[in-house]
């Protein structure tokens, strides 16, 4: 997949360009490589999600955005002494929109990763990577936008049925 290769190239470049500055900052505060890695990777995710959302514009250079986000996350997570503050910290969540799963959703996600990989990949391309439908059609080998759209809805239906079934199972389990 070309998109995957392009992302790999992008992240490699950003690592080379921005990670040293984040590492310097974290080290200056007397802290470890792992902490630098941790916040830097989350900042990359935030940058990717922001830059792939049509209605959000990042008003600074990519380097400044990633460095600023990493620094912010690091201060939130580590500087206030609490090692346990993770992404669910309410302020950090304003930068990285919180979508961490509830335990039951975790199981569901795991199930979908194995049983419904192709549908999840298709839905990811459209809703997470925000690729245009023409590109999604190309990538997944559909004859055109129309059949790709039909497949997209079929996938939503399939995942939705799984969600419903699992909800029933959990209710049974709780009783």
């Amino acid at each position, binding site marked *: 997949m070309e998109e995957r290769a392009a992302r790999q190239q992008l992240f490699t470049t950003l690592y080379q360009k921005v990670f040293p500055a984040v590492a310097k900052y974290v080290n200056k505060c007397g802290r470890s490589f792992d902490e630098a890695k941790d916040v830097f990777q989350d900042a990359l995710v935030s940058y990717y999600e922001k830059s792939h959302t049509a209605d959000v514009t990042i008003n600074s250079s990519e380097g400044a955005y990633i460095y600023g986000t990493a620094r912010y996350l690091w201060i939130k997570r580590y500087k206030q002494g609490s090692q346990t503050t993770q992404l669910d910290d309410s302020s950090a969540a304003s930068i990285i929109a919180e979508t961490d799963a509830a335990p039951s959703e975790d199981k569901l996600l795991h199930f979908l990763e194995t049983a419904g990989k192709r549908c999840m990949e298709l839905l990811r391309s459209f809703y997470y990577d925000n690729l245009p439908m023409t590109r999604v059609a190309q990538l997944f080998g559909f004859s055109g936008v129309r059949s790709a759209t039909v497949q997209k809805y079929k996938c939503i239906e399939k995942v939705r049925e799984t*969600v419903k079934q699992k909800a029933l199972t959990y209710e049974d389990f709780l009783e």
Partner: protein
Amino acid sequence: MNEIAQIERHLLNRQMPGDALLFEAKTLLDADLRVNVSSQQQVYSLVQQYGRKQLKQEIEAVHQQLFTQPEHLSFRQKIARIFLNR
């Protein structure tokens, strides 16, 4: 499929105001529709989680490459020097 498209427009705020009101009214009267709306909402949330999880794996793969492969030696040394320097 029509229903799925309609729920999608509703959840992603792509309805005309009049249609939105009508849809709200329909959900009040139709329990099955309500279940479908909430399950479909969960589908978008799962896709978001799935996307983020995959992306994190891709980033970690890049990290592993940078910190193991011979052609990135000078980058590694640069980072190592930063953490030696306290």
